[in-house]
């Protein structure tokens, strides 16, 4: 009995970690963009959805030609990253750049418009039905005995997310580009005065965020096994919650927020009721906004008068 309880707990812990890793991957895009230009890119969820669709199309074609699974995984993910990044880059140029001097509300409305546009574009180009997404992740034989606790897909999601997030942290901390990103986030005018091309840094931020979302999209589509045009909306909302939870603008905050949200949902559904998954997630958001509005790791910014 005792043994069963521990196993159940571990199962919930790992499924929370899996979900949380995906939330974190998407939340990083929200938080990095907010850190640099202080807008919420509500079209970010759609970038993730487009990543999943790109991977679906590429993998279907490659499967037809009989490519090996690992090659399909790499090529499909690679194409998804390139496609999503191109969308992210273009969205910034069309929807946000012309509004850089505008009041804060304008880019927000523009973001929501972009999100609706992309959803409907995919709806028209594809279909409104759920489409089957064959898993791109091979089964590991040696993991079979532990199948009840953790599957290959979950393990791969956790590992890839961890690698990607560590790589991102190293880029931001140690490279020239990373320093320029942080400098731009902290003082945009001064960054220009030391010779940073702020436009390039903003584009680069959108590209990196979109690439992370694309990776998240491919992984989650493999995990759940079906996608449609609407998956970006709810995932985007959850990831946004994660970013706010951790402290918007903070990279470690986005990761922590994603994991906390993943665990809240997983333990909530596991121990209380599976009907209330979203209720747990958004109740947590409400609580954080009431008691610690700057988020878990966020810096409270004093309003300049």
């Amino acid at each position, binding site marked *: 009995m005792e043994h069963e309880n521990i196993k159940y707990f571990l199962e919930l812990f790992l499924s929370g970690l899996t979900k949380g890793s995906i939330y974190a991957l998407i939340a990083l895009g929200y938080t990095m963009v907010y850190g640099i230009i202080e807008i919420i890119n509500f079209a970010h969820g759609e970038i993730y959805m487009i990543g999943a669709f790109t991977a679906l199309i590429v993998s279907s074609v490659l499967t037809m030609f009989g490519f090996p699974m690992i090659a399909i995984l790499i090529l499909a993910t690679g194409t998804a990253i390139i496609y999503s990044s191109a969308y992210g880059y273009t969205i910034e140029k069309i929807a946000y750049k012309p509004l850089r001097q505008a009041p804060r509300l304008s880019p927000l409305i523009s973001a929501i418009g972009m999100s609706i546009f992309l959803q409907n574009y995919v709806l028209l180009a594809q279909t409104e039905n759920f489409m089957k997404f064959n898993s791109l992740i091979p089964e590991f034989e040696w993991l079979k005995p532990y199948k009840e606790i953790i599957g290959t897909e979950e393990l791969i999601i956790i590992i890839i997310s961890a690698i990607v997030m560590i790589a991102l942290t190293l880029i931001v901390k140690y490279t*020239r580009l990373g*320093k*320029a990103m*942080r*400098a731009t986030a*902290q*003082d945009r*005018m*001064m*960054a*220009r*005065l*030391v*010779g*940073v*091309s702020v436009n390039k840094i903003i584009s680069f931020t959108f590209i990196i965020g979109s690439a992370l979302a694309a990776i998240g999209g491919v992984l989650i589509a493999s995990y759940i096994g079906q996608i449609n045009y609407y998956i970006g909306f709810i995932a985007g909302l959850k990831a946004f919650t994660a970013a706010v939870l951790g402290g918007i603008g903070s990279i470690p905050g986005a990761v922590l927020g994603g994991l906390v949200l993943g665990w809240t949902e997983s333990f909530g559904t596991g121990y209380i009721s599976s009907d209330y998954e979203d209720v747990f997630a958004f109740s947590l958001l409400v609580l954080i906004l009431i008691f610690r509005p700057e988020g878990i790791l966020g810096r409270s910014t004093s309003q300049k008068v």
Partner: protein
Amino acid sequence: MLKLKNINTYYGNIQALKDVSLEIKEGEIITLIGANGAGKTTTLMSISGIVPPKSGEVLFMGKPINDMTSEKIVSMGLCQVPEGRHIFPHLTVTENLDMGAFLRKDKANISKDLNYIFDLFPILNERRNQPGGTLSGGEQQMLAISRALMARPKLLLLDEPSLGLAPIIIRQIFEIIKKINKDSGTTVFLVEQNANLALKAADRGYVMENGRITMTDTGENLLSNEDVKNAYLGM
């Protein structure tokens, strides 16, 4: 080295600079003095390309720079230390200095310059791994000047380096400015409200009022000018 020809700069509909012309020759220390809101900071921002002038011409080493982006201007060797220092608060002292050398590729010389800076300001060496935002005002001013020096500028624009600092620190900062000018031949354009100190340090000075240049002369002559004495030296 730097020539402003009849520049006019606007913030929206408000004209901040009216037909401003001035000239800075290589190796000089030139100062621009004037009251609050006269347009001194705007002059520097127009030169650096942050608030480009609507009309007129800015020539740097003979080339027009008024249509260039600020990063292009920096890459030509024209650097600014803005008013209020603008240290990147969450970057360490070393990272702030690295940002100063952002456009440089010559790694060996960058580390040599870093050592020169740490010789010039030993306190920055002591605090090298501390976030810039935790330094005192004087230390931040030293860091701001050092960050600009890391770009190896030909012309250094300094906006109110004495602002909010204790008199003893101000004197130290001015000594450093003169030393930089003498040692490496860096041309300095100094904007100051502390007219007395600025005019003493400068070869020539310009006086600005309501967006216009109203007077120009050598530092000494301006110091003894009755109008300047009344308006800016509190005598």
